[in-house]
């Protein structure tokens, strides 16, 4: 399973928790749609840091990096490659 699928599945299963029947669009704005809120982002960070064995630095802890599955995937891949 690639990075994008892991992230999609976590958001779908853990943050949406059955509130949505259709798969999430990779470009959908997760913050504006309320899928990721101020607590949800902490759950997401715990997941991606543990699952991918990375550390997101304070400089990267900006909303733009968490606005969609695409931006989260790019952030994680960037950290993995670093």
């Amino acid at each position: 399973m690639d990075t994008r699928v892991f992230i999609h599945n976590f958001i779908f299963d853990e943050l949406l928790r059955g509130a949505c029947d259709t798969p999430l669009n990779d470009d959908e704005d997760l913050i504006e749609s309320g899928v990721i809120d101020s607590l949800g982002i902490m759950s997401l960070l715990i997941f991606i840091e543990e699952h991918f064995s990375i550390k997101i630095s304070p400089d990267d802890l900006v909303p733009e990096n968490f606005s969609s599955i695409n931006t989260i995937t790019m952030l994680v891949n960037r950290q993995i490659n670093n």
Partner: protein
Amino acid sequence: MSKSFSPEQEKLRKIVIEFARQEINPGISERDREGVFSQELWQKCAEMRLLALPFPEKYGGDGFDFETTVSVFSALGYASKDSGLVHAMITQVLCGIQLLHFGSEKQKLDLLPDLAGGKQIYAQAITESESGSNALHMKTSAIRNDNGYLINGAKTMISNGPIADQIILFAITDPNKKVLGGITSFILPSDTQGYSTGKPLDKLGLRTLKNGELFFDDCQVGEDAVLGREGQGAILFNESMEWERTLIPACLLGEMERIVEVCTAYAKERKAFGQSIGNFQAVSHKIAAMKMNLELGKLSLYNSAQLKDAGKRATLETSITKLFISESLKQACLDAIQIHGGYGYTKEYEIERDLRDSLASTIYSGTSEMQANIIARIIGL
């Protein structure tokens, strides 16, 4: 089971305990009664380098790791009877940690030395009159203009607020965005035009800590006042809570250790029905429960501190630490009064002050109910 400290930590703790007993505790009953924050004691604590512990030397700090900082503040909570002053110091250190992790290099070089040296007092301004537990649903705004940002609004309950030289302020910069992305934090000097404070609040406990309202009436700040980046405020707040929910419980745990000692000594000394009251299970079980919570609290506290030192995320662990230790301390203080009977209710035995001071601990830095919400959310409920 007791936490083992390194020789350096032991040495620091011993020095701080002696300092607190000799310098901080005299006069606490009067300061508590009158609600006096002692500038002189603040300076003495700064000279002891208590405000400098976790900051790198290049920014005027002493470069200790977070676990050592936690162990020293726990010793301070244990020995100091002035919980308000200790809380003022924690507020200062936590503002410094926010600066250290999110500030620009220039902000760190400009501000941290005076923060670590206690020359400038810091406050963190989040809470508003209509947003307590839901702290990020604020109304204070910072509207962009040609010169930076124009800030308007009011904050309340702010620790150190009435005496602060610098305020780390959270405000809405984009009302069209959700909380994540719509809030930004700023560093605002108290001499900014349009800034004012209300009278310090008269409180039940922590009476030597100055809390109050802050007013921002067309306060103009430059772009260089932003801490972190525009829209990063909510994330910065979440991040800083992990440090706060470790450092505050460190002091609370120290207070609990003192309560256990005081109650144990009293239960051995006080006689009733021809024997020490500690022989009665109604008393000894209460103290046993205090001791159990103290030791479990230590495990939780130092686990949280070590996670932060390791650069790990500790949202779940720090919420558990804060919830468990604050509730345990409050219960320990209530039981201490019960064990001391009528004497516990008098000012002479000083336990009533511990109880009054402890009551706020399950409210500030996120109520116990909010900690339970966080824990539930993190485990997927």
